């Protein structure tokens, strides 16, 4: 098969072949990497195992990162969920907790699976592990997320330095949103719509990390993005459609990414990084 480069091609292919999105992805990857589909799924499972390990390590650690800006917030959230009455249901609570746990683990130099990047590594695993306990479903959901990320990557660099945070946490949220619709047994079209609605909602997100480190605002943003992914999935599952078609949203994302000032693309010369407090922290760290 030829490489699928747009959401339009993806949907048409699934309709023609009567298969799921994850199946399209694993057929193509098997062909490209010259390994069996079984091998592909084994590798995906290994990635899931790392993701689960980072969630567990993150939840059980309160060790601060080397900059000391992040590392002990996950514990606060866990205590709050266990002691107070949260307005979220258990799965939503887990999603926030797992996203934060993984992102904190990343900041303290823990082992993580970038998804699609290290700075956005908490979002997809949070959704998959909060909403599914079945290994085969988790594998299919992660491949579905991967296929969404691949299509975004056709036009948009998944890198804050090139496209702003919309390319990193934004892509991750879209991937997670599609994965959740898959877990909830939505259709291929609903998976793509969820990713589209989510993407529309993160357009223009800049990358302005304090002191250039993957911590502020990145760590907490992972938790926020998990929630945005849930919203995208729910809207789509309700039958809501995107007025702007998926591939046009990606075009807009690319255009916006090129318009975002270089000062707001991982160079830490503006935004949060250039606030009074941001600068003070930077000076202290660079001493």
């Amino acid at each position, binding site marked *: 098969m030829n490489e699928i480069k747009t959401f339009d091609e993806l949907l048409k292919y699934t309709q023609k072949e009567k298969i799921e999105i994850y199946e399209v992805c694993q057929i193509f990857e098997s062909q490209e990497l010259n390994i069996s589909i079984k091998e592909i799924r084994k*590798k995906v499972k290994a*990635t899931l195992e790392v993701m689960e390990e980072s969630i567990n390590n993150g939840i059980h650690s309160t060790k601060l990162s080397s900059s000391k800006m992040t590392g002990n917030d996950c514990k606060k959230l866990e205590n709050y969920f266990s002691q107070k009455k949260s307005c979220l249901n258990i799965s939503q609570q887990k999603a926030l907790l797992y996203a934060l746990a993984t992102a904190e683990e990343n900041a303290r130099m823990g082992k993580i699976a*970038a998804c699609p990047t290290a700075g956005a590594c908490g979002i997809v695993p949070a959704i998959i592990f909060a909403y599914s306990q079945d290994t085969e479903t988790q594998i299919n959901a992660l491949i579905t997320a991967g296929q969404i*990320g691949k299509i975004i*990557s056709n*036009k948009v660099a998944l890198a804050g330095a090139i496209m702003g945070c919309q390319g990193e946490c934004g892509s991750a949220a879209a991937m997670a949103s599609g994965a959740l619709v898959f877990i909830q047994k939505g259709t291929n079209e609903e998976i793509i719509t969820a990713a589209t609605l989510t993407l529309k909602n993160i357009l223009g997100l800049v990358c302005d990390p304090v*002191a250039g480190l993957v911590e502020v605002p990145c760590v907490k943003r992972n938790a926020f993005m998990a929630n945005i992914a849930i919203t995208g999935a729910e809207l789509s599952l309700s039958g809501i459609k995107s007025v702007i078609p998926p591939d046009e949203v990606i075009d807009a994302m690319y255009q916006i990414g090129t318009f975002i000032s270089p000062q707001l693309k991982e160079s830490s010369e503006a935004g949060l990084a250039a606030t009074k407090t941001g600068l003070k922290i930077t000076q202290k760290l660079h001493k």
Partner: protein
Amino acid sequence: MEKTKTLFEVIGPIIIGPSSSHTAGATKIGLLAGKIYAQKPQKITFKLYNSFAKTGKGHGTDKGLLSGVLGLNVDNPQIRNIFEIVQKSEIEYNFEYLENFSRHPNSVDIIFEKPEKMKLSGISLGGGEILIDSINGYKFNITGNYPTLLLIYKDKPGMIYKVTVLIQKQNINIASMNCERKARGKEASMAIYLDSPLKKEVTKELSAIDEIYFIRSLEALK
């Protein structure tokens, strides 16, 4: 238009955090540089430029580079403690933090000083993708994504044929290649990116060609 990523570039790679460009990318540059150097380094200088210099310490760029040069891969938890680990050995190393805006934001020079001298430059492109773009002043484009054959040789007619015919004999497909020369009839460099790894015999046969001064056959990085 970006190059489409593979599934495992999007859901992965598995790395030690916090940054795919500044930690994992740095480790990969070090790892590839170490493989090209192909001997145990005793003294190394790392020159970090621009963003690598400014945010390198907080991202563990320094730890990644040193770990990589010593053969650790991007997912090895020892990266975190590499300075303590190296303390027990006799390797000398030194980091310089520089600004030079003619260089890529995330670039580094790795200068092996002992036992032999070799200078390499690397760039971290984001998402863990990297490039070694120069070895001892010769231009290259080594990503570590393919088995790669590197040659420095005398520029004269028939050299590319001599090399590729040996590769063809093994029925190995060339994915891409590039050649550069310093001047007509002087030294030239060749990098050949392959779809499958080169057998040892081929490297041996190539080494026997008089006009080839430097040869490295690298496996793809995992």
